[in-house]
């Protein structure tokens, strides 16, 4: 299946696949990228050969058909055996999926990416629920950072996951402190061994 997926990719994507060190991450990349191509070709009514990708200054990819940028937003994430792809005709998108496996540096991560209030809430959670609680907040932040598209210039410890989602709600509306007029719809969904989140920019007219 991986070989078939790789056959869908262009040379630049295959070169990227070769740079992956582990077989698992390489396979995840190839399958998700081929699936993304299939979805975009269907949505844009183009052939796989006509489809290519460019990247913004901060590395966020965008689609090109016959060399021209097209109006569609997409984002991809994969972790372990799970992949997540979202498409939208309008509004920026970000997604993140994470397998809920124990992380050896969980405490370091918590103090690096969360606000003091978020850290205090996570400190109350112990045992097997702690990694899942961590990833529930992490995926929301990662999806928002990816959606916003400015990469490392957006410090995840400088904004909070919406309080309703920290109390268990599966969705909320969010705005970054530095751009309060831009609103995002954030949704979270969990499986037995993964958590995921999607952030989608809301139409300012609504």
């Amino acid at each position: 299946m991986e070989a078939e997926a790789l056959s869908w990719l262009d040379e630049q994507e295959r070169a990227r696949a070769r740079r992956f060190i582990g077989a698992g991450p390489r396979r995840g990349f190839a399958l998700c990228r081929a699936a993304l191509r299939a979805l975009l070709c269907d949505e844009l009514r183009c052939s796989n050969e006509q489809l290519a990708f460019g990247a913004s200054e901060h590395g966020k990819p965008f689609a090109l058909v016959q060399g021209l940028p097209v109006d569609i937003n997409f984002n991809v994430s994969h972790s372990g055996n799970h992949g997540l792809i979202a498409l939208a005709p309008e509004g920026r998108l970000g997604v993140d999926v994470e397998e809920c496996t124990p992380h050896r540096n969980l405490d370091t991560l918590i103090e690096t990416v969360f606000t003091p209030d978020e850290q205090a809430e996570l400190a109350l959670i112990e045992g097997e629920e702690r990694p899942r609680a961590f990833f529930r907040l992490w995926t929301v932040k990662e999806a928002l950072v990816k959606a916003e598209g400015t990469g490392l210039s957006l410090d995840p410890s400088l904004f909070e996951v919406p309080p309703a989602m920290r109390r268990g709600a599966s969705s909320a509306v969010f705005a970054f402190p530095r751009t309060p007029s831009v609103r995002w719809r954030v949704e979270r969904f969990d499986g037995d061994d993964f958590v995921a989140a999607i952030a989608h920019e809301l139409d300012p007219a609504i």
Partner: protein
Amino acid sequence: MASTAERIRQLVSENIEVDGKALDVPEDLNLSLSDAGVPSTDIVALGKLIAQDFNVTFTLDDCATFSDLSKVAAFIDSKSA
């Protein structure tokens, strides 16, 4: 005393696994962790651990220039020169 490069290689191998095996970084540190498929959680945690180990601070602008681990070592060495 371990060189900066040796210590970074050690921190990576102690803290990052790919497919269940410790990640082996080349001696010249010519490796981009994100290109290699290392999860963002591992990259963020490693950045914090390296900063603590070498007693340096990475700003977000600094991190944006770290295209591979050799750039991290060069940054650290420039701070201690």
